[in-house]
């Protein structure tokens, strides 16, 4: 173990001074568990999102967009791959255990992947609204994240998610400039996806949220959510779409958009794997895992997964040079 801290107070002082924790540090168990759970959920979400994206490769209109969706699917699965690696290095679960938990419905993934995308308009709404929401949260985590390996892997994930968000905006603009039927399709998708995308940020952060206290996250949920609202409400209305919030209003005093009260029950249902499409999604992902066993067998040497915590070859004794 590289570094250790006598007490939680010492560890928190280290974090408050901007200290970065590394995989082989002897970090306090509650911190290890909190950062692991956070990264595991992120990894699961990338995988579940990538599988949805994959479903749309054959149905994406036009060769150029089809190729872009193919690349995006590879990106998302790749992000899952990298994040499972970072999570496994914390030594709590192996990648295989994480995947088994995901397919058995024992671990979480983002609320938006508990819904079904039924039209191309839905895919555009997801790429435009949901990818942007995910990117906003990831940027806020990246800015000050105290866990070094996660912070570094987020840098490249954010760069790639930036491509996805611009792709989503490109598609949204094409639909906005399209036929009345296309605009109608996108409005219906907006009606389905606006609230799940907004709920991705979660309810207001609790004052004692350890993710904030330990600098795993650096911004409160409500701050990020508001940033998204202020960006997307004017953009959607600017393109002539209706934001599906009956109490939406512009506050002249604060100069901000207010979407009104938020019903958190749908989010809570997804967290309990009880969303509208949770059962099918999880079963489909598990089935995919079974059907692709031959690929893993071809790429494997038969031995079990090696990443179960970081363990470098040797630690040299301290002999002071002059």
């Amino acid at each position: 173990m590289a570094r250790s801290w006598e007490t939680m107070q010492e560890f928190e002082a280290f974090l408050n001074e901007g200290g970065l924790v590394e995989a082989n540090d002897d970090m306090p168990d509650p911190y290890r568990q909190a950062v692991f759970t956070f990264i595991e959920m992120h990894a699961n979400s990338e995988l579940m999102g990538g599988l949805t994206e994959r479903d749309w490769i054959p149905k994406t209109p036009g060769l150029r967009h089809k190729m872009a969706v193919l690349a995006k699917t590879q990106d998302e699965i790749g992000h899952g791959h990298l994040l499972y690696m970072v999570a496994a290095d914390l030594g709590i679960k192996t990648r295989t255990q994480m995947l088994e938990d995901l397919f058995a419905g024992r671990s979480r993934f983002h609320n938006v992947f508990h819904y079904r995308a039924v039209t191309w308009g839905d895919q555009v709404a997801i790429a435009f609204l949901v990818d942007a929401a995910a990117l906003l949260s990831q940027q806020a985590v990246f800015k000050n994240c105290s866990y070094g390996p996660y912070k570094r892997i987020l840098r490249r994930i954010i760069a790639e998610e930036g491509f996805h968000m611009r792709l989503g905006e490109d598609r949204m603009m094409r639909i906005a400039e399209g036929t009345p039927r296309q605009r109608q399709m996108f409005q219906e998708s907006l009606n389905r996806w606006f609230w799940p995308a907004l709920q991705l940020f979660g309810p207001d952060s609790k004052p004692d949220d350890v993710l904030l206290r330990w600098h795993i996250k650096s911004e409160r949920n409500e701050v990020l959510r508001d940033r998204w609202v202020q960006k997307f409400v004017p953009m959607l209305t600017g393109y002539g779409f209706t934001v599906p919030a009956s109490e939406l209003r512009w506050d002249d005093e604060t100069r901000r958009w207010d979407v009104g009260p938020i019903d958190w029950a749908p989010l809570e249902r997804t967290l309990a794997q009880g969303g509208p499409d949770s059962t099918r999604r999880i079963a489909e992902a598990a089935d995919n895992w079974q059907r692709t066993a031959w690929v893993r067998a071809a790429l494997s040497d038969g031995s079990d997964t090696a990443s179960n915590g970081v363990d470098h070859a040797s630690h040299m004794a301290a002999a002071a040079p002059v």
Partner: protein
Amino acid sequence: MNVYEVFLKKDGREEFRHVGAIEAATEDLALVLARESYARRAEGDLLWVVRRNHVISAEEDFVAPNADKPHRHHDGAAVASRRKAARESSSHKVAESADEVTH
């Protein structure tokens, strides 16, 4: 299966940099997976993978003593102040020639 640490280099500009890790059964597959995971958009043009258990690592207690070696540095302040003193106390010509020597 083995874990490989992945390093990328932008030719001619940077040092090899550690970018992350991947898990693979063979060295060839490690290179393929590293390329497909870390160099998807020309993030580098040279690639190393190193088995994690082949990395010989030293930690802070080993490296730290070198952080306290002032005699290995020279920030130029002492030279500058002496030069300044020389300029002020002697003729213009002497100070100028001293400058030429140090440059």
